[in-house]
């Protein structure tokens, strides 16, 4: 295994409950892996093991070729983490938060202003974080994760509950980092976000992987495509659905079109959520 993140059959249980059960995967440099699963699926436990805050009860993890456990300081010096909870110091300003964490990385000269500009917080750097909105705090979390120019980025629900503008800004930063060669592991509930951002997605439920592949391949392998034809018949609108994954697609479409006056034709493909539900038997919430 030579990925930026290499995980081999890791498991972790809280008492009798198996949170993660023998999962393996790799993330290459510059790749974004989307981790998809409902609450309690094992996403956060996996991230805690990856950043060295939990020790796997079985299996092994290597980050940038180094085993995580026993080398946590060396590994952590090269990773950035944005946790699901906004664990910032609320009574300190954004600048003080960033400077403090920079000092933990041994960074003496941090261009705080540039970092804050990147997440569109430059004008509020001297304000206490307690006065920030949820979106601003999330952007500051991203800025904090980027302090050390990490080679590996772990982002736990980075856009959860954010407005579209904040979400778009954060997605742009994630894509930019990946293009710069950072390996990104991203957990999210948002299937559209995962579809748009991820090079590959992994479906996790009850601690095990149900699939790991590119969004396109998952849709091709497990989804169904169709065309919805809306025609007007005797003044009324009628909808006809024609499956596209069959040999007689042309006959089906021709029949639908000939039945009346065509109003619209839409093609549809399965969403990741549809595929997740069909594979795991449950939704993402």
């Amino acid at each position, binding site marked *: 295994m030579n990925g930026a993140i290499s995980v081999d059959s890791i498991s972790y249980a809280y008492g009798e409950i198996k949170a993660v059960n023998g999962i393996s995967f790799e993330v290459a440099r510059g790749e974004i892996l989307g981790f998809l699963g409902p609450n309690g699926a094992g996403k956060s436990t996996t991230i805690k093991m990856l950043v060295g805050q939990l020790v796997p009860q079985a299996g092994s993890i290597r980050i940038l070729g180094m085993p995580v456990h026993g080398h946590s300081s060396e590994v952590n010096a090269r990773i950035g*983490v944005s946790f699901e909870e906004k664990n910032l110091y609320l009574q300190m300003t954004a600048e003080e938060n960033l400077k403090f964490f920079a*000092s933990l*990385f041994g960074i003496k000269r941090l261009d705080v202003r540039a970092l804050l500009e990147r997440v569109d917080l430059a004008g509020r750097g001297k304000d206490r974080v307690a006065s920030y909105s949820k979106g601003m705090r999330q952007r500051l979390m991203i800025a904090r994760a980027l302090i050390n120019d990490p080679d590996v980025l772990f982002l736990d629900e980075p856009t959860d509950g954010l407005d579209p503008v904040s979400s778009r800004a954060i997605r742009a930063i994630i894509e930019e980092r990946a293009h710069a060669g950072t390996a990104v592991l991203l957990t999210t509930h948002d299937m559209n976000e995962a579809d748009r951002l991820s090079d590959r997605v992994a479906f996790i439920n009850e601690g095990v992987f149900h699939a790991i592949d590119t969004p396109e391949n998952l849709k091709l392998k497990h989804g169904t495509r169709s065309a919805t034809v809306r025609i007007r018949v005797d003044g009324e609108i009628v909808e006809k659905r024609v499956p596209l994954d069959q040999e007689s697609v042309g006959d089906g479409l021709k029949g639908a079109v000939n039945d009346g006056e065509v109003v619209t034709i839409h093609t549809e493909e399965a969403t990741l959520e549809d595929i997740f539900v069909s594979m795991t038997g449950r939704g993402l919430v």
Partner: protein
Amino acid sequence: MSGPGRAAIVGAILKKDLIQFSRDRVYMVLSIVGLVMFITVYWLLPDTVDESITIGLSHYDLGQFEAVFADAEEGLDVVVFESEEAMRSVIAGDAEAWRTDTGRILIRDTVAGEARPENAKKLSVLVGLGFPENFLRDTATGTAGTVRVLVNDDTPEEIRTAMVSFIREIAFMLAGVEMPITEPEADEIILGTDRMGAQISMRERMQPMLIFFVLMMETFALASLIGVEITHRTVTAITATPAKLSDLLAAKTIFGIGLSLGQAVVLLAAIGAFGAGNALIILTAAFLGAAMFTGIGMAVGSAGRDFIGTLFFTMACVLPLAIPAFSALFPGMSPAWVRFVPSHGVMTALVDATAYGAGWSDVAAPLGTAVVWVVVLFALGLGVLSRKARTL
């Protein structure tokens, strides 16, 4: 990128803790106002001990009484009232007795709102003896008489009993008869320092209590800081960097001890405790106290979920530790189990050093006990906090 050294990381966390502490008005106000208040209270307390008992006396003809009372006991302050009625109203609290510079006794009727007399000192008459008019003659001739002992509801039972015995003794003296017993010789042995004429004042007795209050406040401040790290899960953000949990624990240890010890030292210096005893012993005791309370602060901070929760847990854990400080206020009245309270060793060493000028050999035992308790409580605090941080 070369990683920072452990000392640099601990220093960075300490700096952050100081910023957080300074931003919280509650802790800042509590720390500064509390310290000023404790110092003020200390200097307002009396620094002398009035060992004399003031008794009132009413009699138409003092005669030999003056000599009898003058010789009777050391520390007996006799106030002669013109009438038993005046003495009764003073002891009942309806009037006050004042003694002028010339020794004259003035009665101020407080119920009528009379003004305070000038150039006079107020007397606190504990008990009054009302002798009958023919007491001298009756006693000399062996006739039974009645002496009224006037006390108020504040007068201790011991003093009432002592006064009754005292009157009997006077009667025998007046009658020129020896008491019907062979008086045993009393060999007075003073255990410890002889403080005759220099008893510990209320001000001195308050020292451990004030130090306890300072340590308690800073325990609360530390517990709250740790509580914030736990509830906001900032601990996990720190340990996702090159910083280790041990760095965080080291920083909290230094911060907690530094904060408590710093305040205790300021207080001790402001009340002049270092000049009263061996400064190194006092510093050692204060350090052990700070370490003990830091351990408690860590455990409490790990358990508290919000301000009220932290306050509740702090009080529940810390208040029992005040018992030895109370014992110092009322020596001789504390039960034997007080010595098993963890703070007993620290408080005993502080009292012995500041009030009795104890040396190292005198405080070796209490300091040894304190060290054991510090190790236990500090290990407990570190264990609880590290376990909590690992399970977030």
